[in-house]
């Protein structure tokens, strides 16, 4: 396989873990959490600094996860305790993380040229080339995350969390503090985003202050692509497990599309525009379709549908 496409697949899988994080807030809680841009970069920055200070690469990834979780908790508390609208709470955390990330790294870019990473370790261990090891590590981590998520959202607290997204009134009347479930969801979500940021940092061997910019849009685009693919698959993959898997698959497809259009000569900077257009179209289509159906089902005499 072409090396560029191998890279796209590994990026897709590693970013896919972030997409799973976005899935928790966007799909289950019905919140577009803008913390993601900041917490993704936070994961990368924390991971890079941890590795440079001599931490084990795995410990560095765990640190990135914890940092992401903390960022999510801050957004959660701003949103629930102080009743700041979710979008604004996310923006506040995201903006503050820009400064925090610069403080953590002390500069805007931290290279990890010769430092060991989980990928170089795995490569030494198995003797496989780094390009394919990134995919393998990514798939293994993604599978673990999907399994854990599948288990968690089947538990009592996980069900309560899903119910919070579905009907807040109801679940409060059933004795669940929705403030608590929302904070838990935002924390978990951003932990996954931080984890993904840490892994991406190790795979590309640097952390950059701007690495999270537009992450939320990539997340939404991947979810949307995954959903469409899931629906197109025979048997309509709409169960919870398949929704999680299709989010990761959507991410891989997103990065493949990206690799293709870049090879076709598109400017890399235009990619964000393309992502935004994909998400916008995906959000527009159902609305336009419904309006079209309503209009076309109208008939003056009413005999057409009688």
């Amino acid at each position, binding site marked *: 396989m072409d090396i560029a496409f191998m890279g796209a697949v590994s990026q897709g899988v590693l970013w896919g873990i972030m997409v799973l994080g976005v899935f928790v807030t966007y799909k289950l809680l019905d919140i577009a959490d803008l913390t993601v841009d900041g917490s993704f970069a936070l994961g990368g920055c924390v991971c890079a600094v941890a590795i440079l200070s001599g931490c084990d690469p795995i410990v560095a990834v765990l640190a990135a996860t914890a940092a992401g979780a903390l960022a999510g908790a801050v957004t959660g508390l701003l949103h629930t305790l102080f009743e700041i609208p979710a979008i604004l709470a996310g923006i506040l955390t995201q903006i503050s993380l820009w400064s925090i990330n610069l403080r953590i790294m002390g500069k805007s870019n931290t290279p990890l040229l010769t430092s060991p990473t989980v990928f170089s370790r795995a490569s030494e261990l198995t003797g496989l080339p780094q390009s394919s090891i990134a995919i393998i590590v990514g798939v293994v981590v993604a599978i673990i995350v999907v399994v854990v998520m599948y288990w*968690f959202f*089947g*538990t*009592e*607290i*996980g*069900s*309560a969390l*899903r*119910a919070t*997204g*579905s*009907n807040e*009134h*109801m*679940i*409060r*009347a*059933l*004795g*669940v*503090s*929705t403030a608590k479930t929302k904070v838990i969801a935002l924390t978990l979500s951003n932990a996954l985003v931080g984890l993904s940021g840490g892994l991406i940092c190790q795979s590309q061997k640097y952390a950059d202050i701007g690495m999270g910019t537009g992450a939320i849009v990539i997340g939404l685009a991947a979810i949307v692509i995954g959903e469409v693919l899931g629906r197109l698959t025979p048997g309509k993959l709409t169960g919870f497990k398949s929704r999680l898997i299709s989010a990761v698959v959507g991410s891989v497809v997103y990065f493949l599309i990206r690799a293709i259009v870049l090879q076709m000569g598109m400017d890399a900077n235009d990619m964000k525009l393309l992502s935004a257009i994909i998400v916008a179209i995906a959000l527009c289509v159902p609305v336009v379709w419904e309006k079209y159906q309503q209009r076309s089902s109208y008939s003056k005499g009413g005999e057409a549908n009688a």
Partner: protein
Amino acid sequence: MLKLTCVKKTFNKGTVTEKCALTGVDLTLEDGDFVTIIGGNGAGKSTLLNMIAGVYPLDSGTVELDGHDISRLSEPKRAMYLGRVFQDPMRGTAADMQIEENLALARRRGQHRGLAWGITKQEREEYPALLAKLGLGLETRMSAKVGLLSGGQRQALTLLMATLTNPKLLLLDEHTAALDPKTAAKVLELTEQIVAERNLTTLMVTHNMNDAIRLGNRLIMMHEGNIIYDVRGEEKKALTVPDLLQKFEEVSGGELANDRMLLS
């Protein structure tokens, strides 16, 4: 036993939209009381139920349940004592979740929710029998999303969920008002059946005076944030709709604010 002492609530205090919703309500319910509440628009019926459920904080007064003061408890904390059904059928169930998942959420009302399975195998076996009692054929659709059910089916399910763990108090807030007459009658019949079977202490807000007279052992009429008429036992059984209308005119000075009461 439920005891309200001088419960007051004003919304939007100090603004032009200030609304005194409850002006110092005193009310004591004995165990097993089934109380129907009627009153015009804005009389404070729903607010009364919401204050008991802890939806809004009290301005003053106390709410006691079985001798415990629950006035300062949050809505989720009070939930372990209360079963609630709302006017809006969409409000009592989670549309994106399965019927059995909804029941499992209700089974754990007020309990600590940890990392145990959200629904156990045993529950999956028990729930169909409970649903069969509703007589709506839902027992064969356990894993269907609740969003696919009709308003009446959802309301019947909410009623079952509200009474799944014996609540100390059942709060019904015009729970048949949004349903068509036939479905409303069915849900009301289920309500009677469940309340009688389990001897639940119940507060039911309704705009239907016939229902208010026919159901329960006690009737309360509210007006402008307080209870203006409280009748029980034989005296209540002997009531007629014209009696109630006359009573309402006496205390409220002639006008009947709620057209729906007249229509039903």
